């Protein structure tokens, strides 16, 4: 169960957002995708999930080609995702947000559900049990009957991840799951994500929070200007001079600024006042 990008390309008009990216994501590992703003990280996620079409090349899960399928078909093939901006069903309860994920499996018997209430009750109970279990895992059980839109931001992030997990996907794509989370929440998230690591799941995390990425990921793909700049373990990535130059920064840059700042202070002669 390996997710494979083969010579992937994405173009918006003349703007090439992803250029000749080939790589493999193995199950059982947590993969990180990092890179500066606009490097094409979200584009990769969006293409994998079917939100964007692929301009050239292909994406496949084992031997099944995903690119070209409709978005919902990709989802039903076992690809689940979260969004860089949280996209929950705000006016539905937390529980319903998860329940609705069973639609593809259960829609066939809607009529039975409508006509025969006991059947509906039984099925609903079964769905809800499964959902509640997951909610407990994310400490969201207390919110089950609240509207998703009314949850605090951090809880919404968790809920979105829970929603992606409900149907036990083969591939889990997380687009900046820590964005907007405070420190405690990030720590909690890190813990939960490492617990979710599983032999039969490919996990991919796009993130700017280097602490989280370095702590969690087994392998990191660095994107730059739509191209694959580097891939390797966290240690290798941090050591790579290419990556430092493009993304993490080098020592020299800092020295330049230091000099300029001193220059300014000398020129203005500001004497900073202590405040209460």
């Amino acid at each position, binding site marked *: 169960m390996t997710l494979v990008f083969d010579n992937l390309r994405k173009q918006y008009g003349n703007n090439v957002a992803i250029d000749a990216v080939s790589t493999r994501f193995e199950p059982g590992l947590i993969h990180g995708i990092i890179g500066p*703003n606009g490097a094409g990280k*979200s584009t990769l996620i*969006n293409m994998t999930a079917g*939100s*964007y079409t692929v301009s050239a090349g292909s994406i496949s899960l084992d031997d099944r080609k995903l690119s070209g399928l409709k978005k919902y078909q990709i989802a039903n093939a076992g690809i689940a995702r979260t*969004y*860089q*901006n949280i*996209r929950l069903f705000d006016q539905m309860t937390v529980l319903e947000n998860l329940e609705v994920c069973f639609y593809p499996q259960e829609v066939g018997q809607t009529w039975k559900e409508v006509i025969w209430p006991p059947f509906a009750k039984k099925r609903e109970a079964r769905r809800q049990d499964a959902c509640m279990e997951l909610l407990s895992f994310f400490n969201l059980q207390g919110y089950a009957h609240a509207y998703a839109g009314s949850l605090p931001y951090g809880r919404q992030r968790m809920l979105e991840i829970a929603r992606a997990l409900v149907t036990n996907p083969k591939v889990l794509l997380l687009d900046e799951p820590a964005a907007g989370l405070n420190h405690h929440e990030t720590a909690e998230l890190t813990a939960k994500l490492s617990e979710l690591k599983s032999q039969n799941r490919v996990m991919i995390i796009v993130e700017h929070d280097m602490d989280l990425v370095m702590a969690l990921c087994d392998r990191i793909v660095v994107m730059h200007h739509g191209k694959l700049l580097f891939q390797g373990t966290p240690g290798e990535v941090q050591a790579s001079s290419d990556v430092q130059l493009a993304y993490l920064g080098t020592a020299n840059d800092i020295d330049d600024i230091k000099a300029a700042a001193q220059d300014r202070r000398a020129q203005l002669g500001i004497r900073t006042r202590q405040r209460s």
Partner: protein
Amino acid sequence: MLGTIIQQTVNALTIGSIYALIALGYTMVYGVLRMINFAHGEMFMLGAYAAFLGLSIFIGDIGGAGAFALTAIFFGAVIAVGLVGVGIERIAYKPLRNSTRLAPMLSSLGVSLSLVTGIQILAGPQPVGFPSFFPATRLDVLGGTVTLVQIGILIAAFVLMFGLYMLVNRSRAGIIVRAVSESRPTAQLLGINVNLAISLVFFSGPLLGAAGGILYASYYGIMSPSMGAVIGLKAFTAAILGGIGSIPGAMLGSFILAFVEVAGTALLPIVSGGILGTEYRDVLSFTILILVLLVRPAGILGTPVSEESMVYKREF
């Protein structure tokens, strides 16, 4: 034959100009507030009634009025309607700015209903004759008959549309309006008075609509409280056809719709061998609208809103 073609072209251009004046109002409001202002057709109607009121108060007999007086009344009326538009926005739409998209739309339906009945109560429900702002001169152009009114409408409409285009694309006010349409919070943060910008839109849209109403009333020689409904719907259709939110789109859509209508009348019976008569004209227009939208889901010149791009914009 040539005469008929010329004739029909002029007819289509005239109808198209009037549609365009109204369609622009729909498009501007939509561009800024993402709202369909169903009361916009009534601005068109109010324009005619305001001008009529002006005429009967200040002039009485149009025959004796000088060009200056007529121009003054024209502008007085359209400005008055512009102000009404601003007032309506403040009362009926502003409280709903953060509501669902459906709410201001339905509020505008309420406004529309109130205005139509209000005028019915004040001025009577029946159609009233409207004096022509233009002398009834006819010209013969290569076998086609063109009236001075038609030429006047064409010129007036193009001048107004050009003015609007310049306003929106070249003037500071226009740039500010476009900025507000893109992001109200950011505009506010930059010191732009968002309410003023929205008011400007609700001033100029109704103003153009009112101008359309006066031109229309003097072209057809008639006005009625319900005159905004049908034409408003057509102009709205035109705006959608061209891509709502786009100013050139509104104009293009209007002229296309007008040409389709004229062609529907002139050619449908011939093309279908007499099976489909002129009564199927609107079926033809709507069918073309639907076909265009199937190929271009955001209209001819509209910018398609792709799935994730809205998210993208917020993020970046």
